[in-house]
């Protein structure tokens, strides 16, 4: 114990005069050298090939902050957020239905999940898009009545296609999360006189979040990329705008590169956000949370300055 504390407190301290440290010739891993050389060669040839291609690299920075591209980024983010909202709310609802003791609601939830997970999202989008061919009006009784074509805008088509499909996946994630909470927690809460809904809200869901959040983060990142599919239902977002610009400016491949770069930036930002959200929900689960990268950097800087101070 005391030795450990000594070590962490003063990394610069000389090792205690113990037994002599072993100095041995390490094993040489020749296979690793070979693998590294092969991998580098392949990489170099790919870079070379692209360097030979007639790519107008300058087009990428030229259009990177084009108004249409920025608008597309905004639409992509909007669509991601709204679809995920539909997905999460729908997913929680379906998960609760699926876990309920009512056989009717649980079967309906099962059927929904089976259907929407079992068909490709592109097919679902196209179906929503083409429902106008079979419905002339939308008639919700006294609430709302309109021509189908003016009701089913590209945005609504995209939201329904992506959101309802996502709800099926989120339902399974939420269900796994709810089931992961120990039954003793529910019992303890009930024994204190808390109602079912309070138990769910105050005790079960906060603990389920630790299981739900990481895959949900993945779903958000996936959703951001999947939004590129909605260009087929005439919704204009990042990919569709990039495509349009590519066709008019005569640099189609370069615009796809540009779109890819934007997607990479967005998903990278989301990954960082996910890291911190996961940390938040892990509180109370492990005695000591591992430091964040930023904390590590700061710790290294201080230990570095300490070392310098000791050397001086």
């Amino acid at each position, binding site marked *: 114990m005391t030795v450990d504390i000594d070590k962490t407190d003063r990394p610069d301290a000389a090792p205690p005069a113990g037994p002599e440290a072993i100095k041995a010739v390490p094993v040489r891993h020749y296979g690793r050298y070979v693998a590294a050389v092969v991998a580098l060669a392949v990489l170099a040839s790919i870079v070379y090939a692209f360097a030979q291609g007639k790519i107008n690299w300058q087009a990428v920075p030229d259009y990177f902050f084009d108004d249409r591209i920025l608008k597309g980024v905004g639409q992509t983010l909007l669509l991601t957020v709204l679809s995920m909202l539909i997905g999460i709310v729908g997913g929680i609802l379906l998960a609760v239905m699926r876990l309920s003791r009512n056989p009717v609601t649980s079967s309906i939830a099962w059927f929904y999940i089976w259907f929407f997970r079992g068909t490709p999202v592109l097919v679902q989008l196209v179906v929503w898009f083409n429902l106008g061919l079979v419905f002339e009006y939308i008639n919700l009784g006294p609430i709302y009545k309109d021509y189908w074509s003016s009701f089913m805008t590209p945005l609504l088509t995209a939201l329904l296609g992506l959101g309802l499909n996502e709800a099926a996946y989120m339902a399974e994630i939420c269900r796994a999360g709810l089931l992961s909470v120990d039954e003793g*927690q529910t019992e303890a*809460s009930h*024994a*204190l*006189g*808390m109602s079912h809904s309070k138990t769910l809200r105050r005790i079960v869901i906060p603990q389920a979040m630790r299981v739900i959040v990481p895959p949900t983060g993945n779903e958000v990142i996936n959703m951001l990329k999947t939004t590129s599919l909605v260009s087929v239902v005439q919704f204009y977002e990042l990919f569709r705008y990039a495509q349009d610009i590519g066709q008019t400016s005569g640099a189609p491949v370069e615009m796809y590169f540009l779109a890819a770069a934007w997607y990479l930036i967005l998903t990278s930002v989301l990954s960082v956000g996910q890291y911190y959200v996961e940390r938040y929900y892990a509180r*109370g689960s492990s*005695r000591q949370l591992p430091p964040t990268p930023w904390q590590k950097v700061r710790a290294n800087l201080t230990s570095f300055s300490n070392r310098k101070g000791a050397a001086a």
Partner: protein
Amino acid sequence: MTAETTEPAGTGPTAMVKAEGVHKSFGPVEVLKGIDLEVRSGEVFCLIGPSGSGKSTFLRCINHLEKINAGRLYVDGELVGYRQKGDRLYELKDSEVALKRRDIGMVFQRFNLFPHMTAIENVMEAPVQVKGVSKAEARERAGRLLERVGLADKAGNYPSQLSGGQQQRVAIARALAMDPKLMLFDEPTSALDPELVGDVLDVMRDLAESGMTMVVVTHEMGFAREVGDSLVFMDGGVVVESGSPREVLTNPQHERTQSFLSKVL
């Protein structure tokens, strides 16, 4: 709730728990085969017996965590889980069951603290959420309860940062926060390292001295002998022997009690 609160015949005002022929089955397995017993107000009532004898199940029936299949179970003169009108029994709504559970504190073998809340938040949770006590008031009371169980300095710690014994004492404080008239203990020291058992038993001893009615399922024969007022030995879903702890533990009449005690003492 309504005027026709059922007062079972022959139950004096001092019976906190009264069981009449309580049966409980899990599927085809009959765990309780007719339990009759009475826990008087203010006494410490110990349940002992081999594992699988049904003592924990019986305890869980008292606050309706388990539904009984036959017989009658009363807490403070009121039927548990049902309302009787004439000859008919009506199941209570979840909200009505919850209302009754407010008055019954329970301490579990595996503590079951809420891991995402600090010790003091665990204790505050039910008063705030169930009784609608203000947070400031609940926090102050919770602080005093933690002091009572000797953990005032651990208020801000999460359960994972506490030892088993400390967790169990927080769990006791959490149950006490609802001002129960009855406390149920389900093998509160069985999951603890031996050197931590004493602290938990001390807290329970204090609680007994304060006049709390306690039903304790335990393997701590020393505690039962010293603190218990009544003791019941259960085996195979029936009460085999009952009496004062000293009597039963030192001079067991029944052969099964004798063989059990010879193994644990």
